[in-house]
């Protein structure tokens, strides 16, 4: 006879312990999940708002933009426009889940199952996270970053540091390596390397070098375009990396700040590519765990109904003409797809056998799902596993909006035999970060002339940059580069669509 985990809505820390143990039993035993050690922290609503505002990282460095976020969130929270998340989870080892104190016991169970086991398993096993993030080192690195920023503020003044960070933040979405490098990221090592770099500079400093006569400088033509591009590592799409390594007049601490922002951006890169999968996994896991606990009689019918209430809210998908509609809800789509896979694996129809010969009727649900969770990202996951049945169920259709087309927006494909593959391909593409972010890269530096930095934006499907924002970002970029910056928008046939040229602001030049 199993005991109830709790009665009513109240909980204390023993309850939390019991809940976690019970969830763990199901998660590891029944579902065969593989997780980082868990650390559960209880926080208040204010702390939750706080965590929200600093991109979900409670240990983040201080910056005014997080204060702005905080003010914004607080205002809408007070007015009741926004509910707070029940939890925040950090991809680290140990995996830290923040639970709000206002949650009822049922909600805490849901949240523990969702975050401490669902997300946790995904973080530990998905290939993107393995490749791009260092769960062991992140907490220490954040701590290092926070202290480093603080020290810089003491040494070089808050305004200077803020200016550099503002610029770095503007370029954050272009501070990412999209292709895996030679080495795995080791954030613990980063901190030591920063120290060693400084030490090395101090050790090898010798004023005499200044007095050594320089050889005749190479003639301009000596460095060919090809050679120059190679020396500078061009083309380079990681703008922050390029500036850190090649911007001529940045102080060492500024380079280190760029590096920090770049590392943080990189850390979040997998999360932006796996929203649907990550939430789908966590939602599926909490659903399985809660159902199991209910079957075992560890939570009452009342508690289970409460859970179902929240669960239904979370996986609610409004239709496109609903005023609440704002794109696909990753929870809803992810959860629906996970359940659909479960159905295909256990009781496939003929259609499923045709579409998914590999998994249909395989009967090992968790085996298939664990494999999916480990080896796909949103784009490939949808492209591979969105079934005709689910497309029919969600009544998906594809719109093609060409501004040139007078007649209006064309319905390109719908959920029918002819359209399944096209709808699926388009939806997958919508979740491909390669299409979401503008494709901007550094192509050249005019070394022989005025050191102008030249960037190209490869325009896809005629979608150009927003002018005001582009100018502002380029201003930041120019301030860091300290010489002119040119951004050229070219289309697929290399036709120039638009050209921006921005000069650095004088104050920034004085800094360097």
């Amino acid at each position: 006879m199993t005991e109830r985990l709790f009665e009513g809505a109240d909980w204390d820390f023993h309850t939390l312990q019991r809940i976690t143990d019970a969830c763990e039993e199901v998660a590891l035993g029944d579902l065969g999940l593989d997780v980082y050690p868990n650390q559960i922290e209880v926080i208040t609503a204010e702390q939750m708002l706080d965590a929200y505002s600093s991109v979900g990282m409670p240990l983040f460095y201080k910056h005014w933009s997080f204060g702005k976020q905080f003010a914004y969130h607080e205002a809408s929270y007070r007015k009741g426009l926004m509910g707070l998340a029940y939890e925040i989870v950090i991809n680290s080892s140990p995996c830290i889940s923040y639970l709000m104190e206002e949650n009822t016991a049922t909600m805490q169970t849901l949240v523990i199952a969702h975050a401490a086991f669902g997300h946790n398993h995904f973080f530990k096993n998905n290939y993107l996270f393995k490749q791009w993030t260092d769960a062991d080192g992140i907490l220490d690195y954040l701590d290092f970053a926070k202290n480093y920023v603080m020290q810089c503020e003491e040494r070089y003044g808050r305004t200077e540091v803020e200016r550099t960070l503002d610029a770095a933040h503007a370029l954050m979405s272009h501070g990412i390596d999209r292709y895996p490098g030679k080495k795995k990221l080791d954030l613990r090592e980063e901190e030591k390397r920063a120290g060693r770099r400084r030490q090395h500079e101090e050790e090898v400093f010798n004023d005499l070098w200044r007095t050594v006569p320089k050889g005749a400088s190479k003639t301009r033509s000596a460095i060919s375009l090809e050679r120059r591009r190679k020396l500078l590592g061009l083309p380079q799409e990681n703008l922050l990396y390029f500036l850190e390594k090649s911007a001529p007049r940045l102080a060492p601490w500024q380079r280190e700040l760029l590096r920090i922002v770049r590392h943080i951006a990189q850390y979040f890169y997998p999360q932006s590519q796996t929203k649907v999968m990550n939430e789908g996994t966590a939602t599926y896991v909490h659903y399985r765990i809660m159902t199991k606990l209910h079957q075992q009689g560890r939570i009452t019918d009342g508690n289970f109904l409460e859970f179902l209430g929240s669960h239904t809210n979370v996986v609610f998908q409004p239709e496109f003409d609903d005023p609440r509609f704002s794109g696909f809800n990753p929870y809803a789509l992810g959860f629906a797809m996970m359940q659909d896979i479960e159905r295909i694996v256990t009781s496939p129809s003929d259609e499923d056998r045709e579409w998914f010969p590999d998994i249909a009727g395989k009967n090992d649900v968790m085996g298939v799902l664990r494999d999916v969770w480990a080896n796909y990202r949103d784009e490939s996951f949808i492209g591979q596993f969105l079934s005709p049945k689910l497309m029919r169920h969600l009544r998906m259709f594809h719109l093609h909006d060409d501004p040139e087309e007078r007649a209006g927006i064309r319905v390109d494909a719908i959920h029918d035999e002819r359209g399944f593959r096209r709808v699926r391909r388009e939806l997958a593409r919508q979740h491909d970060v390669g299409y979401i972010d503008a494709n901007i890269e550094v192509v050249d530096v005019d070394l022989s002339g005025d050191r102008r930095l030249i960037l190209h934006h490869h325009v896809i499907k005629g979608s150009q940059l927003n002018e005001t924002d582009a100018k502002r970002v380029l201003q930041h970029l120019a301030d860091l580069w300290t010489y002119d910056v040119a951004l050229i928008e070219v289309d697929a046939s290399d036709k120039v669509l638009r050209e921006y040229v921005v000069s650095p602001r004088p104050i920034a030049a004085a800094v360097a």
Partner: protein
Amino acid sequence: MPIHIIDRRLNPGGKSLENRQRFLRRAKSLVQGAVKKTSQERDIKDVLEGGEVTIPLDGMHEPRFRREGGTRDMVLPGNKKFIEGDYLQRSGQGSAKDSGPGEGDSEDAFRFVLSRDEFVDLFLDDLELPDLAKRKIAQTESEGIQRAGYTTSGSPANISVSRTVRLALARRIALKRPRKDEIEELEAAIAACTDEDEREVLLAQLEKLKAKTKRIPFIDPLDIRYRRFETVPRPVAQAVMFCLMDVSGSMSEHMKDLAKRFYMLLYVFLKRRYKHVEIVFIRHTDRAEEVDEQTFFYGPASGGTLVSSALQAMHEIVRERFNPSDWNIYAAQASDGDNSYSDGELTGMLLTDKILPVCQFFAYLEVGESGGSAFDLSDSSLWTLYERLRNSGAPLSMRKVSERSEIFPVFHDLFQRRETAQEKAAP
């Protein structure tokens, strides 16, 4: 697998306050402008409440490369009647997107909530109280504890170990207490010694050293020092604010409202500078009386006008209850400017001889009817009188107000932070 459950709630709240302060500092001029604008529309009571302000996003913008326009493809759920090849009419330019903070165009305004303190701080930021010299220490209001050196007696909890050990060390050196290794060396020498006689001598020496060690203790009660604390009175400045108002028939509701706003502002302002602020309400017609706030603003009264009666009443109250050497005295008088001509001389005398010498600050606010410009009429009798006094060197501040919206500018104007030199030049 071990699971750690940690209660983080006990950590002090407001961790994001630092970020918030940074944000406010950065947006200071914008927020300040917004605060002033908001407060003009508000009721005086609400000015204190803090609340929502809206600032333009310019300068607080966090730009990103964003793409727009071009051909768009989208997959949507919930198809009802479309079939492949249908064309949908474009409705306007697409619905407005939700925008988070900082997204969207720079014209967007950014709304957020300021706390009460933040609001008042920003609101009064560039104001200063004139003549703060006479800050008085209140009787026994507050006492603080302060470190004050060391003492030879005290409670064991207050023992200063480092100081004690230092003294003990000095004493041991001064009295030449044998060190432990000296004794050990001697003992070793004795053990190694073969010569009987020499051994005797050494033993005697050892004996002597040991006796000395016993005589001179490692730590003597004499060495012990305690940390000493002293209670010091904390200065608490106190102020009293006199509100004088003419409530004769010629004062309309609108005028009273203006006066009330001014008093409230002054109160908020004083409250921020002094821990204790007392308010005395004196209303007058042809005779004056001290009343409570409710009566002051709303109680019906009628009669002639004798300003001197109010000044006399204030003078008496000061004499009875607020010793000028203990209190900072502020006074604000509001009136429509009527006064009977026979009263002018007495008023002038009371003011220059009795009132102004004890006041930090005396402001006269002449309120007028809404719509009527304060300046196109000929000066009222009271204004003429005060102006004369001021020209002969009396420290009076005077302003005319006829619209609600003028209250804040006038108030700002009165308490504007000025160069000290100027202040002295124009007493």
